[in-house]
């Protein structure tokens, strides 16, 4: 009983928590509200992007270490899933976990050398790492399918609604874990790194350890998302490693509001659905879409949802932190 009240108390006292809970509950109902399988398909894509964006956010949004090569982890998961499934017959569900671990390994491998880097140096180093992986898929085309990728992966569920629920469950798991981390000591220290790394170090915090853990967590969920995406599409290719995709993820986070987890998740839905919606205007779609991005980034640099979340009330809370 005590634990239930505590969770309830935490939930309603923090706007990001209850907004997320309401939103995800609503998303659970979507298949009952519509039988449009195309819309469901679009929302699966949104779910995938929500995982990619929130996993980017836990590292970069929190600590201010902007990773321009998040696709390296996604691609590691996607290609990992393809190899494990095609050559070893590993079932898709198990692949989600295994490829999350593969992602995490890449996260640590990239994290270690990149730890001391900041700003544009980190941006370029991570971008270079992802590009190296992308080039390698071209050069080793015999094993990776080159430009055209690997196809014929097992589907992960038997239909769009199954895919939808599975991906939504992954989003729910991911956000619960990431938000818990975000509000824990780990999250707090990452934020302090963003504010002033030297001061954090001076306060006796081993920032290196926390940053490395953040890299691993971020990469784990990215790898898991990549594996889901590969099985969902029954295909994976170099576009899962492209810089454009990495940048798209950053734009999603920026529009949603970095360092909030909720913001990037909501922005992933907003952008995926509006991008699809814009199809009705035909050829001008990308023109309008990129134009909108510029406007939002320019006028709401802190994110659309941060502004809203900050103004929502906190329920049933004593004057903590005031």
């Amino acid at each position: 009983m005590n634990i239930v009240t505590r969770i309830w108390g935490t939930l309603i006292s923090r706007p990001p928590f209850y907004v997320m809970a309401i939103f995800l509950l609503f998303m659970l109902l979507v298949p009952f509200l519509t039988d449009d399988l195309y819309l469901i398909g679009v929302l699966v894509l949104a779910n995938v992007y929500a995982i990619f964006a929130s996993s980017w956010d836990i590292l970069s949004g929190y600590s201010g270490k902007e990773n321009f090569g998040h696709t390296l982890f996604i691609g590691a998961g996607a290609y990992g899933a393809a190899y494990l499934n095609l050559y070893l017959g590993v079932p898709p569900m198990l692949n989600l976990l295994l490829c999350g671990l593969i992602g995490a390994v890449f996260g640590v491998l990239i994290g270690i050398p990149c730890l001391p880097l900041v700003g544009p140096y980190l941006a370029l180093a991570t971008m270079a790492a992802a590009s190296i992986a992308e080039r390698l898929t071209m050069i080793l085309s015999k094993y990776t399918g080159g430009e055209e990728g690997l196809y014929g992966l097992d589907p992960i569920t038997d239909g769009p609604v199954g895919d939808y629920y599975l991906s939504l469950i992954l989003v729910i798991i991911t956000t619960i874990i990431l938000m818990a981390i975000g509000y824990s000591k780990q999250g707090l220290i990452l934020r302090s790194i963003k504010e002033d790394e030297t001061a954090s170090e001076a306060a006796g915090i081993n920032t290196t350890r926390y940053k490395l853990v953040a890299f691993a967590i971020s990469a784990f969920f990215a790898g898991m998302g990549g594996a889901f995406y590969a099985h969902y599409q029954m295909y994976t290719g170099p576009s899962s490693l492209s810089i454009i995709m990495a940048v798209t993820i950053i734009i999603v986070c920026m529009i949603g509001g970095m360092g909030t987890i909720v913001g990037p998740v909501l922005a992933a839905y907003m952008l995926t659905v509006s991008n699809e919606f814009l199809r009705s205007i035909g050829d001008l779609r990308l023109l309008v879409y990129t134009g909108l991005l510029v406007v939002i980034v320019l006028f709401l640099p802190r994110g659309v949802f941060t502004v809203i979340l900050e103004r929502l009330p906190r329920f049933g809370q004593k004057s903590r932190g005031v």
Partner: protein
Amino acid sequence: MVALEILIYGAVLSGIYALLAVGFALIFGVARVINLTHGAFYMLGAYITYALSVLLNVPLILSIIGGMAIVFLLAICLDRFIIERIRTTMINVLITTLALSLFADQVILQIFGPDNRNIPAVISDRVTLLGVDIAGQRLLSLIISVAVIATLWLIITRTRMGNALLATAQDPEAAQLMGINTGRMFMITMGIAAMMAALAGGIVGSFLTVAPEMGMLPIIKAFSIVILGGLGSIGGSIIAALLIGYLETIVAYLISFNATELVPLVVIFITLIFRPAGIFGKRRGF
């Protein structure tokens, strides 16, 4: 024979890289801004030159100058109305300029369509230099790069404006106190750099191609070269351009044609890790 080919083709490649990278480095050095629309300026330069010379029959040289002028104005507007607002946050500048260049790609796609275009060469003859056959235009691009960069160097080191630029680069606040209008310096730098990118776009059109997405790869390369050379160091970026240009050419000739793009990336990654300030950077930019 192979050595001579590497020497000449490497120089040509490095020349174009340098033309793009020096402008990029200049913007960073003076205005502390990583401007990813630089690639879009290169692309716009090429398209404006194409539109003027092929569609409107303006003489080629004038078309290139026209392209540079229009891009110069665009860059000044960009600085005045957009960069100015967000100058202080690196990530905002990166993403905004990137989003803008994606937008520019789409605008061009809508106007000109997806087909590749060709710009006629200023020098359409092919020449044989030291036994190596090469398009005259390619050689010209090298000569222009060297001339433009040398002129820029002279302007920076010998003129009053150059001094003001250098002062702004070293310490904007102190420069402001000394009566230098730093906002104007930022704008001028942006304009000059964009003009250099447009020039590069106008002259490569005859031996590469003109397409909406043509700016993407060069900007990533310029970014890499500038970091490799030490952010903000113009001399460093020239040397880094030579390094990358020759590295790519040597890999292509001697190792594998397909590893051309890979080797420089690996070099950049390793350099960043072991020497984040770049080869010639004395201090980190951040």
